[in-house]
């Protein structure tokens, strides 16, 4: 299998998202906050008459936060999950590469946030990359606590 991967950088790290799950990459300008929603849910944005739920990936990983209301455009990857569209904020979108291996477990210790969203390590032409589980990224840090 030669799965295509989208390389993005989140919180300064280069990671891979399954490219098939990413519908498009957009720039988010205005953001409508959702009061009382979990922290990592940055707000709502509109994309061509669809409502996007914007996920602040840095907060989801508990690695800081993205200031989305600083008047600048922020890049985000749009994914669909259970019929809802989400925009995942990233520092930058870099490239699309082919996966050269199946994801394999990473045995070294990762940060808490990364551990939670990890689907393993994949080999690419650009070296090994962490493959991120989109659903876990969307669910955010509170998900395990709520499920327990």
């Amino acid at each position, binding site marked *: 299998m030669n799965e295509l991967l989208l390389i993005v950088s989140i919180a300064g790290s280069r990671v891979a998202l399954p490219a098939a799950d990413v519908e498009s990459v957009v720039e988010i300008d*205005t953001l*409508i*906050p*959702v*009061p*009382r*929603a*979990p922290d990592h*849910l940055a707000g*709502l*944005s*509109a994309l*061509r*008459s*669809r*409502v996007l*739920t914007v996920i602040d990936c840095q907060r989801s990983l508990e690695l800081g936060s993205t200031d989305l209301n600083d008047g600048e455009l922020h890049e985000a990857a749009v994914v669909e999950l*259970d019929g*809802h569209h*989400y925009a995942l904020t990233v520092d930058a979108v870099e490239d699309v590469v082919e996966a050269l291996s199946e994801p394999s477990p990473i045995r070294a210790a990762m940060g808490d946030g990364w551990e939670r969203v990890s689907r393993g390590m994949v080999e690419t032409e650009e070296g090994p990359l962490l493959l991120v589980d989109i659903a876990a990224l*969307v*669910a*955010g840090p509170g998900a395990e606590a709520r499920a327990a």
Partner: protein
Amino acid sequence: MDDLIADFVAECREMLEALGGEIVAWEANPDDRARLDSIFRFVHTVKGNCGFFDFPRLEALSHAAEDALADCRSGRRVPDGTLVSAVLAIIDRIGEMIAAIDAGEELPSGDDSGLIDALAPGAEGTAAPAAAAAAVDGGAKASTSGPRTIRLSVELLDRVMSGVSDMVLARNELARRLREASGDVEVDGAFERLSGIIAEMRDAITRTRMQRIENLFVALPRMVRDLSTELGKQVLVDIDGGDVELDREMIEMIRDPLTHIIRNAVDHGIEKPAERLKSGKREIGLLSVSARQSGNQILIEIADDGKGIDGARLVEKALANGVIEREAAQRLTKAEQLALIFEAGLSTAKEVTAISGRGVGMDVVRSNVERIGGVVEVDSAPGKGTRMTLRVPLTLTIIPALTVSIGRQHFAIPRSAIEEIVRANGGSVTLERIGGAGVATIRGRRVPEVALADVLGLPSEVKDEERTLVVLRPAGGDVYALAVDRIHDHEELVVKPAAPAVMATGLYAGTTLADDGSPILLFDPAGLAQVGGVRLETLERGGRAVEAPLAVNSNEVPVLLFRGLDGNRRALRLGVVDRIEEVVANEAIRHSAGQLRVQLGEAILPLAGVEDSAELEGRVRVFRLNDGSHEIGYAFREVIDLMTLANEIIPSDAPGSVSGVTLIDGEPAELVDAHWLFAEYLGASVRPAVQLVCRLPEGDAWMQNMLRPIVEAAGYLVIGEKDELSADITIVSEGREVATEEGGRVLRLASDPDTADGHDKIYRYDRAGLLIALKSASAGRL
């Protein structure tokens, strides 16, 4: 009727197409339970519909196949090759007949007994091919009647709709650019035209998806009437909430489940008149069907006052059929016991009837409802009745909403939950803090108050007393006041469900896009109250259920007591009031085409209740009155209370908007004559060309009080026994003699349901029967 047949044909065709693969698979493996179930459902559906449409041959065929398949399902018989081909032959025959019905041909007469006999255990081969060829030829002739329609996939409509939404956004963008740049009149003119066209298109495309649930409800009274006649029962149907709007696809998806539930209720729920009397109930069973919106769901409730569901019997049955283990059965709660009714192959009916009772139906109901993301719930008290609740999501439902804001952020509140809007610093409002909790006193009524800014944890610079209070009544709950910074606009919003994390806050019913393309969150009023810490004392479900049937047949007429624009106390029969709306007088009320008219949503209705147009100032509240086919508005100042008419009515001297005065709550009130209003305000255009006349005995209090309004509502002029006019229909009590008039019809009312024959002798509370008789008499004349 033609529409219904067309629906039936379309449905059967779809099922037949889908079944094509199943049949082959079943033939290959007759033990496959899932295939068996789906084939069984098909013949069951056909059978159910045939009984309704009077296609005896189809019914006999499907009934026979259903019998054989039911035996297989219950394990009494093992499906073998012979049975499979016999069933297949029947399904083919059904397909041929449906093609014939579709082409508008008479069903050919023919003999199906060969096919039916082939189903019997041990039958040799099939007699199918020969008989089939003789019975139906071709059936492929194109039907020519009926309006031209095409069936479209909803997906395509969705695409068109999202295209139109994009177009609106692009237009808004262009409008902004044009404002900034050009002053070219020609460009502006062209743009205006384009704008108009886009708005119109958006309207039309939205409407293609939305339908009033009424379309689904209209067929119910007839269906219940036919069913109950067939079963020798008396059932009164009470339908409410027909104007709830629902996605067209949703309506189609709940049509079957609703039909199944109602059939079950009439067949197994409601007892025969004699049994009902024995258990101390009125002989007429009450079946109430109501739809309403609650948060992000539409609730459809079907309640009957029949014998209820025996949970223990269900458990026994489930054990016997191996649906559950004995150990698990003992741990079931009452609700779980009742929920067993949705398991495949379960039914507590002792006898299998032509209507229902084979345990198919309820499992189909559940799977159909769950497929659209809905839930079915059952609640039942043995001896008292059963209540089924369908909850279906509001997805893509358009709801009127009020937009409000806190700080700079906008939110929407469903208008259906809004009772009134008052300014916190208004004269009739005081705000107090009691132990930290907010209490607003609005015209003497104390209601809990929450500040939206506090609930949401948003900063707000507006002081408490400068806010606006939106008084909300969540579905089935008590009122509370929500303080918002500012209120903006009424808008019709297309609501979509929000992401799970957003819904999990409990505050929101969904998201929507405003006209400028920015997302807006729609509140769930009940959720807001909960998060805001307001305790809503929900109305006791049982309490409401008991109340409603009582009002139907007792002599107490529920009325709405209100104060008119001129300040007089008036009362209006509750039955004619559809809902209450609020409009801005100088925007929505105009004098046009000879009378005062009010615009309510998209409808323009004649407006009554205005003596002096100077009284029309600021916001005016309007009753929307409905006689079943037409609507008029009635302006008033405020609602006082819901009361019942108990005292004597002193009739007014001359006919007019007030039919008389009576004492309500110790004070006189004028009784508004809704019939006169409709007659007067709808004008001559809708009056029948020929005045229909009905003769009623003057001395009979029941006839004058109970029957007369029905007869009048059906468009008749009511005269007494001695009046000279010739009557189209004369109604008398059973056993009283009356001279038959030339061309007139005599309808006798029986006080005992068992002596009624449904034609010229009708049980006096058989409302549907009465209406049909009145209709047919008028049809003869016009």
